[in-house]
């Protein structure tokens, strides 16, 4: 009897991490995700660099379950709210930086565009609460060498 109870206890302990594993990982409260460049309202011409700033958390590979670390996602002209229960989508307006990149070169058609950063965990889920940057607006001008 004792043995069975011991085994049951051990089983429960073994299963515990699996059960208690939350999808939304928590992020430190003072985390700040922001754009180093460009700044809100900036006008750019042609291809431009976007640099991602992150304070109080680390940047790591997608798939790495490190504490307090995630990887960047850049949302271009996305208006839908972020669903914390789903992985951050992967398409042409949700750019992933799962290799731990902290910058990218963007080329957008002329006009007004919005940019926003979202930090994703090892499985591409947003943190809880979501670690997101302010949504900034940039204006892309006609190329200088306009035909």
């Amino acid at each position, binding site marked *: 009897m004792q043995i069975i109870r011991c085994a049951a206890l051990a089983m429960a302990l*073994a299963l515990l991490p699996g059960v208690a594993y939350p999808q939304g990982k928590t992020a430190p409260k003072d985390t700040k995700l922001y754009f180093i460049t460009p700044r809100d309202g900036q006008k750019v011409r042609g291809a431009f660099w976007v640099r991602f700033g992150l304070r109080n958390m680390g940047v790591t590979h997608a798939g790495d379950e490190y504490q*307090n670390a995630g990887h960047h996602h850049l949302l271009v002209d996305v208006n839908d709210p972020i669903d914390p229960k789903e992985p951050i989508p*992967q398409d042409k307006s949700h750019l*992933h930086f*799962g290799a731990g990149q*902290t910058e990218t070169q963007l080329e957008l058609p002329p006009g007004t565009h919005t940019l926003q950063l979202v930090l994703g965990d090892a499985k*591409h889920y947003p943190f809880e609460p979501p670690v997101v940057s302010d949504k900034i607006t940039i204006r892309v001008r006609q190329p200088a060498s306009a035909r």
Partner: protein
Amino acid sequence: MGEIRNFRSGNHDEPPPHGSMPRRLAAIIVGDIASYSRLMQADEEGTHVRVKRIERDLIQPSIVEHHGALVKTTGDGFIAIFDSPVEAVRCSIVIQQNLVGRNASLPKDSRIEYRIGVNLGDVIVEPDDIYGDGVNIATRIEGIAEPGQVYISGAIYEQIKHKVVCGYESLGDRKVKNITDPVRVYRVLPDADAVGRTRGRRENTLIFLLGVTLLVIASGVLWYLLAQPSGRVKEQAAAPTVAPVASPSPQPAPREAATQTPQPSPSLAAPSPSPAPAASASASSAPAPSASASSASAPSASTSSPAPSPSATPFREPEMIAIRGGSFAMGSNDDPTERPVHQVTVKPFSIGKYPVTVREWNECAAAKACGFTAIGKDDAPISNVSWTDAQQYAAWLARTTKKSYRLPSEAEWEYAARGGTQTKYWWGDKLQPGMAGCKDCGDLAVEQPAKVGSFKPNPFGLHDMGGGVDQWVEDCWRRTYQGAPGDGSAWSGGDCSSHVLRSGSWKNDSRYVRPSNRDGYDTNVRYPTHGFRVALSP
């Protein structure tokens, strides 16, 4: 960069350089590339360019971002100072973690890894350099750091221990060259795994209990094994090279019969006994030992054993469809990435009728040739695989069948997806329900991804060429077709940190279902909608 200039010009403006020495307390970071000489010897120009790029793209911005100032870069390293020890350590961690990402896709001996040492000290600041034994100590600490690690001095540790959330491992007092007093050194452990190595007693207790659990399970399995007819077990233990052929045949046979593929596969080497794939891989049930034995000696065992064993179970090879070669206009004007439209001639090849399924994948996993065992319905396409994972499967399949299985080239994929058509979708220019699995392509089943073949085949008889799961192809990702080959071969070479994805997934809208749609994604990163199908050269 702006702050760096400020720092420098500030020193020019404020105290006259030849007057009182400008001393200040600063956190000093010293970074240095491990095995720099070896890297330079192997590829002088390439290494130099890469180091400069890392300095420009990673080190300088990280320092500025953490309110530090780059003092100087040397050939293989850099020195930076910070007002705040916390920022200095954070900056070091950011640099190291980013380098992990940058290095991940490179072979071990061409990785650029930094050692970083951080110390707090009173230094003399000059416009282009700093002096003081605080700097020397930082350099010494950096010297004993392992590549990829951040080591900090006791002075820094005292300042940051309650402020930066990560682990620290004390390495004790170290005597460093030419410094009289020993220096206390700590290793920074930014990741939870590493913290685990120095975990506390309570966790140890838990681990002990877990160990007990595993022991209980293991003894249960042992008891189960012993209760089996003992002859079989002994045979497996005694003759592991014979076992893979002999032992699995009675078990998988009925399953294989049910899931038989039309593809004839007469000369199959079948080292994978594939015990119920979805079941937990670690539970060492009866066939498991033979599985591991076969994978350990896979190449040699499989070359010798198949001939005398006609009863060897033909494992499930993906169903292939032969495609006659031809010429077609690749690309479209619907998206900048699909331009320019260019003529491509494709040689004859075969391609999977469906994306690789969970069942097929798990046979590779059971042979320990693929990275993980997938859960999910047997007939669902495998998903959450990286390009590297897909390559592993193709390599395993080629090895096991001795056929030239591989990933399709991007041109082959599009040629096959178009099925001889030049319309927007393979079935025409208008969206129609029942043709593809996407967000707005019509009714979607609740459970996704839907099993393979849920939608109509294209004119070549291929299912799910568009929608369902995204599919990796062989080519490196480039933003346009400018300079693409015209012979249907894969476009590789160059900076290949991302590869091409085709097809779009059930989570994308109908624009992604178009046969010309393309996107790129990081080579080594898994994502839940990414799968693949294999191709075969004749």
